[in-house]
């Protein structure tokens, strides 16, 4: 089954066409047929649709050949995150195919377990972190691919204290790299951003089972900056 995978929760904007087949032993049964990823936090809106068009063309597929769409739900900076989700939702509606959401941090957690395999980096609990701007990170902790904390947003120094208490030894993701000086953890070099393979693998069971499509609700984790207009201020008394 051909599945379109989109993620715009980080400075990287990613589109890929993935073949989702039957899983083998130690193999999630997903193969990336064509993928594009570009790092430019300011241009998600410009980059994503051409990427979708180009991955489909690369493998000679039409949009109607897609069986499902998988999208990273964040957490991520709001404006960029919405680009991927609304593109996925619109395409899903236009093609009448299901859309499935995956927490973008889970994709990093999944990848950490992969690179953490025998003879690689430290096993055990891993911190996945992305840049939340305003000197904060979005983060969650994984134990062998299973998320053991809720996705959260916080200051790196507070996250460092929290993960120390949890016995986390290593970290993955751009947020961990950016604040490496504050987070005393072994860094996994790659991937820095959620990969299409990981996102597809995390949704593969739902895709294969033909589960009902899901509404793609972003993980904002922050309230909107909305300052209530003050009551009437006397204009004359400056």
């Amino acid at each position, binding site marked *: 089954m051909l599945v379109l995978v989109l993620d715009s929760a980080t400075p990287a904007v990613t589109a890929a066409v993935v073949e989702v087949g039957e899983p083998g032993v130690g193999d999630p049964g997903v193969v990336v047929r064509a993928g594009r990823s570009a790092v430019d936090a300011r241009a998600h*809106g*410009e*980059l*994503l*649709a*051409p990427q*979708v*068009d180009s991955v489909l063309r690369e493998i000679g597929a*039409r*949009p109607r050949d897609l069986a499902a769409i998988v999208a990273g739900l964040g957490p991520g900076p*709001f*404006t960029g995150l*919405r*680009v991927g*989700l*609304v*593109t*996925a*939702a*619109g*395409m899903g*509606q*236009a*093609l009448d195919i299901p859309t499935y959401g995956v927490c973008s941090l889970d994709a990093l957690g999944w990848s950490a377990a992969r690179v953490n395999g025998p003879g690689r980096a430290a096993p055990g609990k891993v911190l996945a972190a992305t840049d939340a701007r305003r000197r904060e990170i979005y983060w969650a902790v994984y134990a062998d691919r299973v998320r053991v904390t809720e996705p959260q947003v916080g200051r790196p120094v507070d996250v460092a204290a929290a993960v120390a208490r949890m016995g986390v030894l290593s970290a993955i993701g751009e947020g961990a790299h950016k604040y490496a000086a504050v987070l005393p953890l072994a860094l996994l070099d790659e991937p820095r951003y959620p990969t299409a393979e990981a996102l597809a693998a995390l949704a593969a069971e739902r895709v294969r089972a033909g589960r009902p499509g899901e509404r793609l609700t*972003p993980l*904002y984790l922050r309230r*909107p*900056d*909305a*300052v*209530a*207009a003050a009551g*009437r201020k*006397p*204009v*004359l008394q400056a």
Partner: protein
Amino acid sequence: MADEPLVLGIETSCDETGVGVVRGHTLLADALASSVDEHARFGGVVPEVASRAHLEAIVPTMRRALDEAGVTLADVDAIAVTAGPGLAGALLVGVAAAKGYAVAAEKPIYGVNHLAAHVAVDRLEHGPLPEPAIALLVSGGHSSLLLVDDLAGGVQPLGATIDDAAGEAFDKVARLLGLPFPGGPPIDRAAREGEPDAIGFPRGLTAPKDLAAHRFDFSFSGLKTAVARWVEARERAGEPVPVPDVAASFQEAVCDVLTAKAIDACRAHGIGTLVIGGGVAANSRLRALAEDRCAKHGITVRVPRPKLCTDNGAMVAALGSHLVAAGVAPSRLDLPADSAMPLTVVSV
């Protein structure tokens, strides 16, 4: 006619999520979801709240528009979307959605100018627009006088507000008077019980010295301050504030300047058609005064029904169908949302 272009339009530049469907000059559907209630307690539109609401509303609004029009995405000839001007994050939701629909349905996309769409929507109500025409666009976000030579090719700005937009002045004065947000409708209602000449509020940029540099520009900030000063003086004196009279006199000051300058623009350019659009065009006094004054000068005034004056998807579809019919090339898939899109650009 079935061979006229069938175009779908998406609008998300402020707090209204609109999807419209138009065939040629015929309106087939105009579905709208508004987040205005979510902004009311802030006394103005909160951009992030608007963006979040657009993301939630776009799919159901699209479904309603397609159902109402009795068409599918496969049937449409093109998808048009507001590319600017407007709130950056809000525009981006609509543009990204439109691209998703366009890529999936393999349709051309047109990123269009919101202000030109406010002019184009009148085609749905009154048929093809005589060109050239003068357009007066007044809303919470914009107050502009435009010379429309060729709606498909370019619109020439003649003047604009130098401070507050006309609709913003309505919102601020409504707040002064303890009326709800948005301020246009409650002021219009209150004004019906009041005297428009009860209080002589100032007419911005109408003095001879201002006209030299700002003949077609507007200013509403001084008016707002004058209303505030008048109301406060009353309150300090312990006297009741005659809300209907203040509303009527304020509204008269706004509508007087808007219509006088619009007619001056028509006469200066020898143009016999005035189109009025934007949310403030729903104001009953503006409509009446424009009709009255234009009739005296032999100018035809065209104001679409109130629902088409406020932001909606039909106006975007109306402009899109005009562009398709005129043979204008579609936009590229990497078209940006441009919060400061210039008026001279009708489609990107």
